[in-house]
C-alpha cells in the first residue's frame, strides 16, 4: 500500500431500464469498492451513468470481470478507466 488514493471512472451506457444502478452498485459493494460520486447524462442518445470509485485497495482485473458480468446480464456497456486519463485530457 502506497497510501495514494487511486480512483477510476465507471461509465454505464445503454438503453435505460430498472435495475441497472442496483446491479452495478451491488457488485461493487461485494468487492468493497467505494462509490464517491454518481451522476447521469445522455450520450449519443443513450442513458449514461457515471461513477467515480475508489480502487486503491482492490484488484482492478477482479472489478473489471465483475462489471463485464453485469454488462452482459443488463445488456449495457460498462467501461472502467483510471482517473489519470481524464486528468491528462481535461486538466493542463
Amino acid at each position, binding site marked *: 500500500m502506497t497510501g495514494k488514493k487511486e480512483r477510476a471512472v465507471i461509465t454505464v451506457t445503454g438503453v435505460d431500464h430498472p435495475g441497472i444502478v442496483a446491479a452495478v452498485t451491488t457488485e461493487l459493494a461485494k468487492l468493497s469498492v467505494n462509490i464517491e460520486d454518481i*451522476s447521469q447524462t445522455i*450520450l449519443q442518445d443513450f442513458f449514461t451513468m*457515471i461513477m*467515480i470509485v475508489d480502487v486503491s485497495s482492490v484488484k482492478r482485473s477482479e472489478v*473489471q470481470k465483475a462489471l463485464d458480468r453485469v454488462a452482459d446480464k443488463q445488456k449495457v456497456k460498462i*467501461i472502467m*478507466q483510471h482517473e489519470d486519463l*481524464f486528468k491528462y*485530457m481535461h486538466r493542463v
Partner: protein
Amino acid sequence: MQFSKEEIAETIKMISFERLDIRTVTLGINLGGCIDPNIDRMCKKVYKKITSVGRDLVEEAKEVEMKYGLPIVNKRIAVTPLALLLDAVKTKKESTCVKLAKCVDSAAEKLKVDYIGGYSALVHKGFTKGEELLIDSIPKVLNETKRLCSSVNVATTKSGINMDAVLRMGKVVKRCAAINPLSCTKLVTFANAPPDNPFMAGAFHGVGEAENSINVGISGPGVIRAVVEKLGDADFGELAEKIKQTAFKITRVGELVGREMARRLNVNFGIIDLSLAPTPFEGDSVAGIIEAMGLEKCGTHGSTAALALLTDAVKKGGVMATSYVGGLSGAFIPVSEDKGMAEAVAKGAMSLDKLEAMTSVCSVGLDMIVVPSKTPAETIAAIIADECAIGVVNDKATGVRIIPMGKEGEWVELGGLLGRAPVMSVSKFSSSKFVSRGGRIPAPIQSLTD
C-alpha cells in the same frame, strides 16, 4: 466531483463513437551490440536481444489498455537499421540477408507484435556494401517474412537526393510487385526519414537514439471530423482553434500512455508522433475532415489549403500536450487506408498530381497508392524523386509507399487495415532518361544554415 460529467462524457464519446485510440506503441531496440562477422552468431544475439527487451511489450500494453479503457491498436518494434549489421558480416550474399531477416521476423512472431521495422538502409549520400546488399535483397526478404518492414532513406536536405538509390528503389518496388504486390505495402522510400518514427512501414531505431525507447503514434481523425462537423459555418480562426483544442486532448492521451509504457518496461520515453492516422473504418478519415470543412470531395481545389490548416492546427495543439514531439507528426493521407480518400480517387476528384501537391503540407508523402502493374520502374523512380524534392526543399520527411498492381481504374483489395483502393493513373510520358543520369542531385541552398 473532480471532473464534470460533460468532460467524462466527451472522453467516452471520443473513444466509443469516434474511434479515438492509440494507433501504435513502438518499442525501439538498439541492435548495435549484436554485430558479429559470423551471421549465425549474430542471428542468435539479435533474436535473444529482441525477445528479451521486448518480452513484456504486448502484455504490458494490454494492461495499459485495460487500465484506461483505451485501445492500443498496434504493438510494434523498431530495430537498428539492419544494413549496419550486414556491413559487418563476412559472407555478403543474399542468403545472409534472408537469414538475418527471418531471425528478426521470428523474434517478432514470438513476441506477438504486429510489425517489426528496421530492414532499413540510409543511403542518401551513397551506399556501403551492406546497404547495397540489403536493398537488393528487399524483394526476397519481404516475400519470405511476415512481420518485417523495410525502409530506405534516399535523400536528405543536408545531402541532396541520391538518384542512383532512387532508381534502384524504383526497380526494387517492381521486383517486389512481380513476386507479390502486397509486399510493397511493407516498403517505404524516404527523404529525411525520422529516426524515431513509430509508424510502419518506416519505423527504425535510428542512429542517435537511446539503447531502447518507447515511441507512440496517436490517432483521432474521427474525433477531429466530429468537431469540424459540429462547428458548422464557423470561420477559419474558430475552426483552427477548435482543432487545436481537440488535438491537445488527443495528444495528452498519447503522452499518458507513452509515459506509462516507458515506466512499465523501464525504458526511455522517446516521442509522441502527432500524426492523425486514418483507418478504412467509416468516419475515421482525413479526407472526411477535409470534406467536413466544406469541400464537396477531397482532392478538389482548396484541398491543399484545408490540409495545411489541419496539419498546422494539429501540430500547434499537440505540441503543447507533450514534452517530446517527433516522428512524422502531421496528417497522413494514404489512399487505401482512408476510405474517404479511396472514394475521392474513384470519383475522379483526387489524382496523383493533387495528392503530390498535398504532400507538401502534410507529414508523410505518397502513401498506399496503387498504380497500374505495368508502370515502368523508371516512372516509379521519378515519382519517388518528385516526392524527395518536396521533402528536401521543404526540410521535411516525405515518403513513397507505392503498389504496382492491377489495371487503371479497377479496385484492388489490400486486406484488413490496409484497405482497398482504385488503381490511379500515372503519366504516359517517359522519365527514363532523367532518372538514369546517375549521381546525386545536390543539396538545396537552404541546407547551408551553419
